């Protein structure tokens, strides 16, 4: 059902955890659908230098969370924003059709974290 890459990220998820002094935090999904993702980012000079996640969800939800942290780290905020769900799915060598929504969720979580980061910097700037 899952590709080797998905299983790799599921069994050895990268960047699990929280960043207590994060610059941005995003949370998407809800328990009703069975998937909740929370993402923390640390941004220095507009570059994502650290990223961590916690996920309640199926194998695909965990793997996509893990994968998006790998894709995002080291990128500028603008670059990270461009990461699409299909890129996440592709990087995982595909997802079963019923699980495609999980890659959506990962991209949305990153977006939410970046948005939160923007709001915070806007607040400090003003």
């Amino acid at each position: 059902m899952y590709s080797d890459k998905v299983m790799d990220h599921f069994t050895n998820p990268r960047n699990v955890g929280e960043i207590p002094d994060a610059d941005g935090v995003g949370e998407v999904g809800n328990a009703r659908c069975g998937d909740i993702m929370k993402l923390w980012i640390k941004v220095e000079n507009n570059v994502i230098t650290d990223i961590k996640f916690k996920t309640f969800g199926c194998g695909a939800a965990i793997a996509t969370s893990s994968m998006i942290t790998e894709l995002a780290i080291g990128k500028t905020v603008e670059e990270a924003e461009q990461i699409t769900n299909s890129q996440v799915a592709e990087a995982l060598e595909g997802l079963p059709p019923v699980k495609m929504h999980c890659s959506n969720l990962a991209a949305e979580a990153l977006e939410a974290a970046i948005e939160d980061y923007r709001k915070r910097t806007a607040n400090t700037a003003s």
Partner: protein
Amino acid sequence: MNRIYMDHAATTPVRPEVLEAMLPYFNTEFGNPSSVYSWGRSARKALDSARDLVAELLGASASEIVFTAGGSEGANMAVKGVAWADQGRGKHIITSAIEHHAVLDTVLWLEKQGFEVTVLPVDEFGSVSPAQVREALRPDTILVSIMHANNEVGTIQPISEIGAIVREHGAKFHTDAVQTAGVLELDVQALNVDLLSISAHKFYGPKGVGALYVRKGVRLHPLVHGGAQEKGRRAGTENTAGIVGMAKALELAQAERVDENARLTKMRDRLIQGLQKIPHTRVNGSLEQRLPNNVNVCFEFIEGESMLLNLDLRGIAASSGSACTSGSLDPSHVLLAMGLSHEIAHGSLRLTLGRDNTEADVDVVLQEVPGIVERLRAMSPLYQG
């Protein structure tokens, strides 16, 4: 790695004795049972014996047994068949919120076709109350369908009591006995049922074959029209090998069930007690009225599929919700009906024991599960440590 299969409620392997009984009917005694010549007659004889055997094991007579292609077909045939045949008398159907989708989806489809449906709630243990059935009965109620034991949480329903109430009222009563055939005593007289469906692959018989008991005098429109097989109640060339296998499997299971149930119950209870030691764990279903092989727990803050995958990596086959709905995004309708929140319902683990399981398997599971739960909780945004 030693593989441990603990999903016997989903399906079971065919027993060697059963497969052996089936083999001649694939290419030696392969005739069409409807034919007059000797090949046909020996197939007919095998069918007749299988029918006699299944009937006897259910306390029915042979003419009351209709062979089907499994539990889903049997449930559809019972529910739609009675609905179509009796719609002149009324259009109201009663069922419960914890039925298998084979009954639930059928009833909901009939509702769209103009029938009226009452879906009874269950209590926190997943039990249907006979009193509620009595209250729900209306003059135009033609059918009540309540399952014998639930496939997810293993709760056994008071079928005999409900049956007596339904009979008094004059409606027909179907029970989905897919999970109890070969496990509990099935006596259609004692159960007070008019229709009862079973599926061979749940009791070490082949997949794709089942039986529906239809009490003498109960009118039914066929689900599958066509040839005169099964006295016109279900068309199609009979799956002789499968039917012979089912009869053999049911015979073996019924003969061994008392001893086997004792063995399974011991393992079941050890599993339940062991898993309960994990913090924030909830046992689902009744502890008294429970199938001897069913363990169903919810670990809060984690999701079922990721647990199953982790167990699979350790060679343990288990389920979350029912196998049929996995792939769907909804949590178990059974757990929700029992009052669990979506969040908790998503974290259910079902272990269903069977012939091939040993106490050593129980040890392995009890050893592996706590670590998996802990690891997933550490990853969960819902868990606060």
